């Protein structure tokens, strides 16, 4: 058990000798003993420290014990202080009564019996400790209740976020399902010879359906679980991403605000997936829209340019709203921090932004000036150039694939093409790798011969005729379990091409 809390016991007596003897009796209790030689000293101690038990000698010069007790009791802080009188004289019942009337809890005659004194004092120190503990438990309980309330609140909001996500995904999906037949019918109609008005109508309908199409794809982007999104091999091209995301991002800009967009040309792809990027900008624009609620001529701008600081793209979302106070600016990325009412805000939008940027190893900076507006600057690193086998020096590598099964063949060709190989079905001298199957030793020997032609030549063989053949440096064997979903990583491993599938989490 941890050491128990020590209580302060104050001894008040004008005779040092008596103080000493009281101290020695009470020391055994293990509490703090404080000594005062006069009423003044006692009051001083009482005001400075928390003292649950006071032992007072009744007979003292200047201010006697009764007077001191009366003074102590008048102070609200000492209403619960236990006062014990000690006296060799004044032992009449009247004296005792007077003492009790003044708030004493006990009256101990001299000569003192040490056990009795200790027992009496211990009752009050113990009471004090129990009361303190109760208070502590009470406080803790209160804190727990508050925490529980807060986590309920959080749960409610994350529930709502999840619901919104599901709703967005479902809506995007259903819209897409209906838009496909609409687009097909429009294509059919446009082949007919129509009057000028009908063609005009058709063009208008097509424009509307194109808009809905973009809205549907960005709705799905918005709903995708950005946390599990990978950026693929090549990152996201901002100029290509914007038209896809534009639909949903424009929907959150209210009528009293205008949105201007400028995306610099020739930016390298950034290392963030499309869904994450959409959610990032959506939330920043949403935040700007909220900030502009009271602004008549609201302006929001989105820009993408090369970051002056690093090999990154700088995305900036600015508004001309009221700006943020310094304290808000510092705290606005914290979870659940919001300056809006809860109906309007979950306090999670900017936190999500910070999370997405952090995952991409990017940075967020915020400039804000009261009365002028706020700019969020997000730097997202450019994606590393796609990995090739082996690091391409000149031209594409040539792969020859000879496999019997047409579907197997098609899958292998598809994977190799996605790894940037030029895929052929006939042998040529330019071939760098040969993907084949080895049903017997002679087929395997042919693969070995191929691989021996150049130091960079490799053969990838499905199936191993005998175990001892599996250890050829330039012939990579893959167990013949045909699962298209595994094929890409199998071939990547065999050719030692690093890829998303090869990196360890």
């Amino acid at each position, binding site marked *: 058990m941890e050491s128990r809390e020590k209580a302060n016991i104050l001894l008040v007596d004008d005779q040092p000798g008596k103080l000493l003897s009281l101290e020695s009796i009470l020391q055994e209790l293990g509490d703090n003993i404080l000594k005062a030689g006069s009423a003044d000293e006692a009051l001083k101690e009482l005001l400075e420290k928390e003292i649950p038990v006071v032992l007072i000698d009744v007979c003292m010069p200047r201010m006697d014990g009764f007077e001191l007790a009366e003074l102590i009791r008048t102070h609200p802080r000492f209403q619960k202080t236990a006062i014990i009188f000690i006296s060799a004289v004044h032992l009449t019942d009247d004296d005792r009564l007077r003492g009790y009337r003044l708030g004493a809890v006990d009256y101990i005659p001299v000569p003192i019996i040490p056990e009795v004194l200790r027992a009496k004092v211990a009752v009050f120190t113990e009471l004090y400790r129990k009361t303190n503990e109760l208070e502590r438990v009470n406080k803790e309980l209160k804190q727990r209740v508050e925490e529980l309330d807060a986590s309920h609140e959080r749960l409610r909001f994350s529930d709502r976020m999840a619901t919104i996500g599901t709703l967005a995904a479902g809506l995007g999906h259903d819209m*897409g399902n209906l838009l496909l037949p609409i687009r*097909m019918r429009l294509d*059919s109609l446009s082949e007919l010879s129509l009057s000028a008005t009908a063609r005009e109508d058709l063009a208008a309908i097509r424009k509307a359906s194109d808009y809905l199409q973009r809205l549907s794809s960005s709705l799905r982007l918005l709903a995708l679980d950005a946390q599990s999104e990978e950026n693929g091999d090549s990152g996201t091209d901002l100029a290509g991403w914007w038209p896809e995301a534009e639909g949903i991002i424009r929907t959150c800009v209210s009528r009293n605000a205008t949105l201007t967009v400028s995306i610099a040309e020739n930016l390298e792809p950034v290392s963030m997936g499309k869904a994450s990027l959409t959610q990032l900008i959506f939330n920043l624009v949403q935040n700007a829209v909220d900030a502009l609620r009271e602004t008549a001529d609201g302006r929001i701008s989105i820009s993408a340019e090369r970051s002056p600081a690093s090999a990154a793209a700088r995305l900036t979302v600015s508004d001309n709203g009221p700006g943020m106070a310094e304290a808000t600016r510092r705290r606005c990325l914290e979870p659940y921090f919001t300056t809006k009412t809860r109906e309007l805000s979950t306090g999670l939008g900017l936190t999500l932004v910070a999370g997405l940027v952090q995952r991409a190893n990017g940075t967020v900076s915020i400039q804000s000036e009261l009365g002028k507006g706020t700019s969020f600057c997000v730097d997202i690193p450019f994606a590393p150039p796609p990995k090739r086998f082996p690091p391409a020096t000149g031209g594409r590598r040539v792969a020859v694939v000879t496999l*019997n099964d047409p579907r197997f063949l098609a899958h292998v060709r598809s994977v190799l093409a996605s790894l940037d190989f030029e895929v052929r079905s006939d042998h040529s001298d330019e071939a760098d790798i040969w993907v084949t199957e080895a*049903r017997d030793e002679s087929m395997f020997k042919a693969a070995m011969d191929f691989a021996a032609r150049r130091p960079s030549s490799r053969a990838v063989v499905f199936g191993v005729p005998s175990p001892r053949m599996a250890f050829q440096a330039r012939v990579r064997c893959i167990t013949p379990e*045909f699962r298209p979903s595994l094929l890409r990583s199998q071939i990547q491993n065999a050719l030692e091409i690093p890829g998303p599938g090869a990196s360890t989490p």
Partner: protein
Amino acid sequence: MTRVDAPLRVMCVDDNELLAGALRRTLEREPGMRWAGFISGGNLISARILEASPDVVLMDIDIPGVDVFEQAQIVSSCAPHIRVLMLSGHVLPHYIDRALDSGAWGYLSKNDDVPQLLQHIRLAAQGQIVLSAEAAAVRRGLRSVEIKPLARNPSHPGRA
């Protein structure tokens, strides 16, 4: 493999009749393609596909009460010349993997452009695995995917 001059017979499995109707109109006016009918659901999907024996089947992923992957698996193992392509609004990694492992020749998105869709049907018939741009991106970006065991064991292709 299909003869060069014969039109591709394309079948559709989808519970959305609006889509089936529009697809029919599109295929009927597309040179080199022919509508081979549509199935809106039910447990006999694979049997009906095998009976009609089209060149290409466009198959929706979520048809109530039907495991379309199992149906695709039956079709591809009984009649490898029939090319099943998934056509779905959901472009999710585990769906793409399950589809391809079940013997599908591709995964197309309902958000693709119509000409691209038709081009993918042709390429699949010619022996290519086709993934819509969206599906290809999702597939490339994969780190790891939980793959459920298939209902049937695919035979070793080398011996097929």
